C-alpha cells in the first residue's frame, strides 16, 4: 500500500514536472529529494520487518548451514522495492537455498539431480539375427553385434549427480537393460584442489581417446567407430574401476594432462583376471585452440597399456600378453550461428600386443605378435534442428600383423571397412530421432551387413552438460 502511494506520488510528480516547464529546477530537485526521502523511509521500515523475520527464521533453524545466503544489497537511497515480501517468508528460505545450489538446476539438498535417457531403436539388416550375434571381426574380436532385427531396447540409462560437499561432486550412471542393471559409472571428483589439479576416483569412463569418455546416447552415430569395436569392444573401454589424476596448467593454450590407474576389466583388451590388482594404465594429453572466431580445433595423443588375458580375440583361444593401444584424436568444430554448424572428427588407434596364444583344445601355447591399426573420419553438419552425418571407418590402415608362432595369420581376406550415413531430427534438446544406414564390410570373410536403424533417444530430468 505504501509503495503504491509512493509510486503514485512519483507518477503525479512526473506528470506535473513534465507539463509545468515554468517550475524552477531547484523546486523540482527539492520535490525529488522529498520523494526519495519518503521512499527511503518506507524501505527502511520494510527492511526492519524483513530483518526481524529473518532472525526468526534463523532461530528456528539455527543448525541449518545455508544461512550464509547472500543478502540482497539494499541501498537506502535507491528507489528499489524490497526484494522479499514479508508474507513470503516460507518461500524465502526455499528460494534462497535454491539459489545457493542452483548451479545444477534448483535445490539439490534433499535429492540429487536425476535423469533418465531412453535409447530405443528399430533394426533392419540383411543378416539374420544369428549372423548378427556371431559377427565378429576376424583377427580382432569374436564378440558379435548385440542387435536383433526389429524392435530393440538398447538401454534406459539413469544419471544421478550432485555436489557431495564443498570438496567433491558425485556422478553415477546406471544403465538398465533387459539383462539387468549395471553400474557404468559411479565416481567422485574433486572440486577444490589448487593449481589446476583434479582427482577422480571410483568407476568411470576413461579419458583415453575420445569416444571412450562419451556415453552411447551422446555418440554422433548409433554405433561406435570400427577401431574401437575391434580393439575394445562394442562400447569401447567402458566403465573401469580406478583413479584418475588430471592437470590443467595455466598456459596461454588449453592443455590438459592426465594419467589413470585402472583395474583392467575390459574383456577384449585386458581381462578381469589378467593379474591380481590394477593392470591397465593410461596417459593422455588434450590441447585446443581457436582457429577463428567461430571455430575450434581440439586434439591429443593418448596411450592405454596393460596386461591382456581373455578368450575374446581369436575363436577357441586364450591370449595372454602385454598390450599397448596408442590413440590420436582430432576434432574441428565450426559454429557460425545457432542454426548452423559443422564438426569434423577423426581418430587413429594402433595396437601393439606381445605374448602367447593358447588353443583351448590343445592347451599348447604359441607366441603371439600383433600390430594392428584402424581409423575413422566423420563429419556432422547441423542445420536448424536437423543434423546430417557421414562416417568412414577402416582397419588395417598401415599395420596388419597377427603372427602366431611367427607365422602371419589370415593372409587373405579384404581390408575391414564400413561406411555410414545418418540423418537426425532433434525436435528439442531432449529428443533425438536418427535414421542411420551402415554398409559394413568388416568381417573379412562372409557377407556384408547392410543395415538401417531408426533410433529414438529421449531424456528427462536434470542432465549434466556434455563435454566438448
Amino acid at each position, binding site marked *: 500500500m505504501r509503495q503504491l502511494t509512493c509510486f503514485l506520488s512519483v507518477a503525479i510528480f512526473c506528470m506535473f514536472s513534465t507539463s509545468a516547464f515554468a517550475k524552477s529546477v531547484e523546486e523540482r530537485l527539492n520535490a525529488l529529494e522529498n520523494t526519495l526521502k519518503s521512499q527511503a523511509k518506507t524501505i527502511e521500515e520494510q527492511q526492519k520487518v524483513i530483518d526481524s523475520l529473518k532472525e526468526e527464521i534463523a532461530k528456528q533453524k539455527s543448525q541449518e548451514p545455508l544461512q550464509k545466503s547472500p543478502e540482497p544489497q539494499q*541501498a537506502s537511497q535507491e528507489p528499489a522495492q524490497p526484494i522479499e515480501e514479508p508474507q513470503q517468508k516460507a518461500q524465502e528460505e526455499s528460494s534462497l537455498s535454491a539459489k545457493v*545450489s542452483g*548451479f545444477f538446476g534448483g535445490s539439490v539438498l534433499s535429492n540429487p539431480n536425476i535423469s533418465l535417457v531412453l535409447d530405443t531403436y528399430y533394426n533392419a539388416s540383411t543378416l539374420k539375427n544369428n549372423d548378427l550375434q556371431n559377427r565378429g571381426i576376424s583377427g580382432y574380436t569374436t564378440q558379435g553385434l548385440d542387435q536383433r532385427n526389429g524392435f530393440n531396447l538398447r538401454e534406459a540409462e539413469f544419471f544421478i549427480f550432485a555436489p557431495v560437499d564443498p570438496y567433491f561432486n558425485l556422478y553415477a550412471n546406471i544403465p538398465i537393460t533387459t539383462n539387468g542393471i549395471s553400474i557404468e559409472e559411479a565416481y567422485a571428483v574433486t572440486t*577444490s584442489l589448487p593449481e*589446476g589439479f583434479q582427482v577422480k576416483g571410483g568407476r568411470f569412463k576413461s579419458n583415453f581417446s575420445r569416444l571412450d569418455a562419451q556415453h552411447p546416447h551422446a555418440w554422433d552415430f548409433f554405433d561406435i567407430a570400427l577401431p574401437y569395436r575391434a580393439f575394445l569392444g562394442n562400447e569401447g573401454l567402458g566403465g573401469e574401476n580406478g583413479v584418475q589424476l588430471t*592437470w590443467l596448467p595455466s598456459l596461454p593454450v588449453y592443455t590438459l594432462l592426465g594419467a589413470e590407474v585402472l583395474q583392467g576389466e575390459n574383456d577384449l583388451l585386458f581381462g578381469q583376471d589378467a593379474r591380481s590388482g590394477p593392470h591397465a594404465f593410461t596417459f593422455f594429453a588434450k590441447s585446443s585452440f581457436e582457429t577463428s572466431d567461430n571455430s575450434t580445433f581440439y586434439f591429443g595423443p593418448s596411450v592405454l597399456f596393460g596386461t591382456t588375458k581373455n578368450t575374446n580375440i581369436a575363436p577357441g583361444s586364450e591370449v595372454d600378453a602385454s598390450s599397448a593401444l596408442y590413440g590420436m584424436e582430432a576434432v574441428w568444430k565450426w*559454429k557460425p550461428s*545457432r542454426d548452423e554448424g559443422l564438426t569434423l572428427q577423426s581418430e587413429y588407434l594402433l595396437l601393439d600386443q606381445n605374448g602367447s596364444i593358447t588353443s583351448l583344445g590343445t592347451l599348447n601355447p604359441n607366441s603371439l605378435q600383433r600390430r594392428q591399426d584402424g581409423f575413422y573420419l566423420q563429419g556432422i553438419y547441423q542445420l536448424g534442428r536437423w543434423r546430417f552425418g557421414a562416417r568412414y571407418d577402416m582397419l588395417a590402415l598401415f599395420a596388419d600383423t597377427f603372427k602366431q608362432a611367427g607365422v602371419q595369420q589370415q593372409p587373405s581376406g579384404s581390408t575391414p571397412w564400413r561406411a555410414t550415413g545418418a540423418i537426425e531430427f532433434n525436435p528439442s534438446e531432449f529428443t533425438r530421432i536418427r535414421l542411420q544406414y551402415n554398409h559394413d564390410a568388416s568381417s573379412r570373410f562372409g557377407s556384408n551387413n547392410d543395415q538401417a536403424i531408426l533410433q529414438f533417444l529421449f531424456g528427462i530430468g536434470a542432465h*549434466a552438460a556434455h*563435454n566438448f
Partner: protein
Amino acid sequence: MRKLVLSLIMSLALASPAFAGLNVVATLPWIGSLAKEIGKDKISVTTLVKPSQDPHMVEAKPSMILAGRKADILMYDGLDLEIGYLPLILESSRNPKIVPGKPGNFDCSRFVNVIEKHTAVDRSMGDVHPLGNPHYHFSPSNILRVAEGMTNALADLDRGNADYYRANFKSFAAKWKERQNQWQHINLRGKKFVAYHHFFEYLAAEYGFRITEYVEPKPGIPPSAAHIERLIEDMKASKPSGILVTPSIGLKEAESLGAKTGVKVIVLPQDVGSMKGTDDLFSFMDKVISSLR
C-alpha cells in the same frame, strides 16, 4: 627430453601475461561491460558468450575452461540460463576460487527482483526457466542493483582497490540514474507488443507496456505454420504496436509475420554489442529505448 618438456612448460607458464589486476570472467557481454564500468583498468575482463550468440544454446569450449582456470572471479546471469555449459566449465576449470559458495562466484541474479517464477513447470511447456525469467538486463533498475553487488564483490576480493571500485560505482550510478530519467520519458504505458521470445518482460514491466503474444508457441520451440496462422488472425484483431525481436533469434520469422500483418518489426539488441552502436550498457539501453519509440 623430459627436462626439455618441463622447461618448455615452465617458460610458457612464466611467459603468460603478468597482469596484476583481477581476472574477471563474465558469461554474457552485458555482465562483462558492467564489470568494466566498475573495475576499469584495475581488472581484465574475459567474456565467454559472444554478443551475437543465443545465450540459451552455448556449448562449453576448451577456451572457456581455460578462461575459468585463470579467473579470480566468475560473474554469471544465473537463474539457470547458463545451465548448459557453466557447471561443466566450473568443474573442468579446476579453479577452487570460482566454485559456488566462494567470493569468486558471483551470481548477478541474486540482486534482482525476479519475475516469471514458475512453481509448476515441466518440459512440455518448452524451455521454461523455473527460477524466473533470466533476461533482466533489459531493466535499468536491475542493472543498478547488480552494479552495486558487483562493486561490493570486487571490493571484497581486491581490498586495496576497494575505494577505487566504490568511486567508479558512484559515478556510474549517477550517470546511469540521469540516463534512466531520460529513458523514463518514453511513453509506452498501455501499448501492446508481440515478441518472438520471452526476452523483454523486464522491459515491459519497467516501462509499462504489455507483451500480449509470442511468435514462439513455447519458449525455445520454433513456431509451426498453424501457430503463425492463428497469430496472424489475433494480430489483425488486436493491432499490436510492433513485433519485438533480436537480430540472431527469430528475425526471419518475425519479418515474415510483419510482412503478412503489416505490423512493424522492431529489432532490439539482445545484449551489449549485438547491434551497431551498442558497445556499452548506456548505448545498449539507448538503442533499446529509441527503437521502441
